[in-house]
């Protein structure tokens, strides 16, 4: 048994490609495929119809949810503002004596202590 080897020409290659990729030739095949395509499209359209209906129903719910989120957000912002205002108010009402007053008081007190010290010695 001899082992012949050869390299296919462009023509051989194209012919082999055509054979490999040949579409079915029976007419019955194409009418069956057409029926399957149309059934698939009908199923897809049916599913799409359901999704559309669900989307229609979901639209008001989404709008309500969006309003709720906005209201909740506004409430949070309002609460934070009140908290901040209260915090400032508490800081202002419990403020220590002014620096000038405190400095003057301490300097007078220091002077008295110095005079007492000098008199006592």
């Amino acid at each position, binding site marked *: 048994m001899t*082992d*012949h*080897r*050869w*390299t*296919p020409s*462009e023509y*051989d*290659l*194209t012919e*082999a*490609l*055509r*054979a*490999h*990729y040949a*579409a*079915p030739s029976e007419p019955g095949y*194409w009418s069956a*495929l*057409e029926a*399957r*395509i*149309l059934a*698939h*499209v009908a199923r*897809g*359209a049916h599913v*799409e119809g359901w999704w559309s209906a669900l989307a229609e129903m979901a639209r008001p719910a989404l709008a309500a949810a969006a309003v709720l989120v906005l209201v909740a957000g506004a409430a949070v912002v309002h609460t934070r503002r009140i908290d901040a205002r209260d915090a400032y108010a508490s800081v202002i009402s419990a403020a220590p004596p002014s620096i000038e007053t405190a400095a003057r008081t301490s300097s007078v007190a220091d002077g008295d202590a110095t005079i007492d010290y000098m008199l006592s010695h």
Partner: protein
Amino acid sequence: MPAAIDGATTERAIVVAAQRGSDEAFSALVRLHQRRAYSVVRAIVLSHEDAEDAVQEGFLHAHRALDRFRPDQPFGAWLYRIMANAALDLVRRRKVRDADELPDNIALPFRDPAESGELRERLKEALLHLTDRQRAVIVLHDVEGFTHGEIGRTLGIPEGTARSDLHHARATLRRLLQNIRSTP
């Protein structure tokens, strides 16, 4: 070319009727284009079964997008672009699935050496060495007779890229198919 003009006018009328919701018109479009659509997707996917799935999916996408199609454009080019996208999408999904599911040892399909010529078998294996796009380009060009421009429009690539892919695909196949053992 009066026949071609008549054909285009008829097709446009069918498309417009389908856009208005006529199921019969859409069936007519399927009948007119399913063979070519099959060829386009078959050039991209790896098996006849995948081609059937891609054609069905492609027509479903076309049906959903039909109201966005402008009837003054060639319907075939629009449809085949959708088909190519459906096929490419299926190839991508198959790759993800195969990467998840394939065992380490992949069993080769049964081959009857008496029935299958060596060239056919080697070609099947060699085609797997091409990229998806190169394979699609060489099949659309050499088997289906698409021009480079048509291939570019169908696959959404520049015409020059289609030419380059064709060149590389042929070179790869030639290299892989050298010194084939001939069977009597």
